[in-house]
């Protein structure tokens, strides 16, 4: 079997794996952005209790390996709580939580990079803190946050390959499965790597297109 024949027989399975990867990362990023925004805004605010919680959250997530988080959510939690998560749900939650901590820090830094006079001007007009955040601070901060957020999304996308450890058949594990039957490790890992590359390239292009539309 030459490379092209191998490519043709492997492609459907690889694409199915890629689809799973994309599904997990899409949901993961959306959830991570929401959590990250909440934690990030809490962190620039004045509420000491919420802030302490946010610091602990970020500390715990950043201070433990992703694989441990995945195992904890998939195997650990169900033993003390009365529910069972599917591997895909558990994996998506782990990816989302993991990314959210890093995104929260990106969002915090973005907000802090906006001159304090902006908040003061907005508050002096009578807007509340959250109205000011929404209408004045975040629209300016988001432009500065996009590049590091894309960067984190790419890292998280690649992190999904860890989820093969709980039996999710995403791109990396579909590669492993094909190798198990064909013994063509060299070729298959090249294909897998190439598909990751394409997905990331599409993500990058899409966001820079979005960025250009925004800044008009």
């Amino acid at each position: 079997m030459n490379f092209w024949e191998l490519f043709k027989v492997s492609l459907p399975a690889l694409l199915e794996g890629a689809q799973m990867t994309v599904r997990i990362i899409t949901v993961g990023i959306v959830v991570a952005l929401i959590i990250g925004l909440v934690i990030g805004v809490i962190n620039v605010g004045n509420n000491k209790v919420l802030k302490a919680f946010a610091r602990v959250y970020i500390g715990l997530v950043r201070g433990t390996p992703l694989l441990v988080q995945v195992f904890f959510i998939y195997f650990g939690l169900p033993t003390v709580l009365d529910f069972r998560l599917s591997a895909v749900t558990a994996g998506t939650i782990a990816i989302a939580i993991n990314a959210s901590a890093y995104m929260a820090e990106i969002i915090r830094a973005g907000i802090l990079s906006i001159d304090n006079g902006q908040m003061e001007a907005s508050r002096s007009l009578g807007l509340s803190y959250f109205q000011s955040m929404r209408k004045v601070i975040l629209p300016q901060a988001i432009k500065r946050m996009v590049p590091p957020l894309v960067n984190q999304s790419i890292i998280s996308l690649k992190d999904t390959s860890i989820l093969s450890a709980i039996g999710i058949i995403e791109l990396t594990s579909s590669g492993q499965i094909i190798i198990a039957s064909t013994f063509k490790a060299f070729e298959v890992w090249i294909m897998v790597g190439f598909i990751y590359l394409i997905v990331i390239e599409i993500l990058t292009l899409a966001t820079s297109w979005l960025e250009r539309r925004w800044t008009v």
Partner: protein
Amino acid sequence: MISVKNLKKSFGINEVLKDINCEIKRNEVVCVIGPSGSGKSTFLRCLNKLEEITGGHINIEEIEISDRKVNINRIRQNIGMVFQSFNLFPHLTVIDNITLAPIMLKKINKKQAEEIAYDLLKKVGLIEKVNVYPDKLSGGQKQRVAIARSLAMQPSIMLFDEPTSALDPEMVGEVLNVMKGLANEGMTMVVVTHEMGFAREVSNRVIFMENGYIVEEGEPSQIFTAPQNERTKRFLEKVL
């Protein structure tokens, strides 16, 4: 209209306002002068609670603003503030800068807010800049837009913190003229300024601050020609 009693403000152990007492009446234009670091900006920022006071009372139109129960956002709608560094919103055009707060806070629609904004832009002489972004404006133009933005909330008090200090000399006049016009319309104004000409010509009263105290206050003619306090004299000798 504004009544300040025994106002104290500290930043940590640094007591910046030590015992400020003053009354500002409706339609009055009060200029606050004094050396750098004397607490002028801090005093002004206490009036709309951008700084939390550490002691005393500030009463604005019969409302004690240090009271925890008052809705400070409501009170601020009635107090415009103009900053030395303009603080226009760079992501919004001139018109959107001006209409943002009225649309969000007053029960008016976009069209009504824009009509108010057009009138104000005419008043400050910038009607041709309606759809321009702030980074395309000169300093004097920015400050005039900032004044229009504050006025759009139709406040009854305007606070100015060195509104012309960041401007090139040739642009100072255009901003002072707008302020003069406001004063003539009867706006209640508290103006921290180094523009002694403006203080002398436009204000009803001048407050001289030093080291966290109001050292002397009086009509501009009296303060500028016959200051009673030794420190006021020394300060005025330096700046005039």
